[in-house]
């Protein structure tokens, strides 16, 4: 049962990663690319880590994965903001 749930969670996570990567390659401009990549990948990573945590069934291990996820969330949202802000400044010539 747990194997099946893990499989479903991880497959869904990988689909989100795939969507994010396709978005990065296919979308026309920087802002929409950032939008696709950060959102899809953050959710994808969350699902992937939930799957791994369920599979391992170890509370301390799961806690570490949650910490990793939170760190990636904060870092990726902050860096997406910084990249977008830099691009915006270049455009407006400030």
């Amino acid at each position, binding site marked *: 049962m747990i194997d099946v749930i893990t499989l479903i969670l991880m497959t869904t996570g990988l689909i989100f990663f795939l969507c994010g990567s396709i978005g990065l390659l296919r979308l026309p401009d920087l802002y929409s690319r950032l939008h696709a990549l950060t959102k899809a990948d953050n959710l994808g990573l969350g699902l992937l880590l939930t799957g791994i945590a369920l599979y391992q069934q170890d509370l301390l291990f799961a806690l570490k994965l949650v910490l990793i996820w939170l*760190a990636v969330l*904060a*870092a990726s949202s*902050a860096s997406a*903001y*910084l990249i977008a*802000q830099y691009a915006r400044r270049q455009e407006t010539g400030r």
Partner: protein
Amino acid sequence: MIITNMLFIDILLVMSILSLAWATLTATDVRRSVIFFIAFGLLVTLAWARLQAPDVALAEAAIGAGLSGALLLTAVQLRPRGTLPSEALDNEKQNRSNRADLRSSAAIRWAVTLLCIVLAYILIWALLQALSSQTNDNLAQSVNANLANSGVSNPVTAVLLNFRAYDTLLELAVLLTAVLGIFALSEERAGYAPAGAVFNGLVSWLVPALILMAGYLLWVGAHAPGGAFQAGAILAAAGVILRLAGKPDIGLPVSSTSYLNIILVIGSGLFLLVGLTMLALGRPFLGYPEAMAGKLILFIETAAMISIAATLILAFIGGRPHNREDG
């Protein structure tokens, strides 16, 4: 089944590393080349992890991909446009005035390629020789046999800080020489503009987290992957982030030259002091007594971490920090 799965991942990893290396070398834009190099470093980290060398993986992630990437990016930023080799080459191509130069540079390029190929074959040959002779395993065996006497249970730390402590002492001396070279050659670069609210928010929790992580890596080095070099690189990353956020200080006592000097020297200095004390007590140089080895190693590693971190931060800012109090 699991073995074939991992083999698939390994092949994918090797191919990605090779193509990223190729992309790094052939990218026309130097900035792009540096970005590829950082990605290359991250994949090499994965490769080290797959080779079951977590110590090397940690060092590669912190120093190879992280800090070297930051150093290279600032180096690219520093040079005015048109002076980068690739851009200069473009100009030459457009001018077509120095055809002889171009031809000779092509000749040099071929000669270097040929030399690299020869070197690669020699390395492959040496590796095959080493793999075919079983005597090499003696080193790992003798380390494991003496691990109990070293004061730590992580074989990598045991080799670095006990069995071959001499090498590590000299490495710290090399770092000290490097920082003296940086002081002699250049001035501190101007800092960045103060960061906005979002980046400041990230910095306000990321820097304490990095300091905590450096302390953890230093402590855990005794029995698991970690140690002074990894911890020092993480600590330096905290300093680099402070610098990027436009903070006036970088985690170093910038207003006091003598404090800064002490921080830079403390790693190799304390190491040397411990070594000489052992000599004075009638033991071999850096031959710790078994009962105290663990404590001495932690002591030396703490000092080494501080010096390593300071060295790396100063390499990033490019020179002796200006005395803020004088103006």
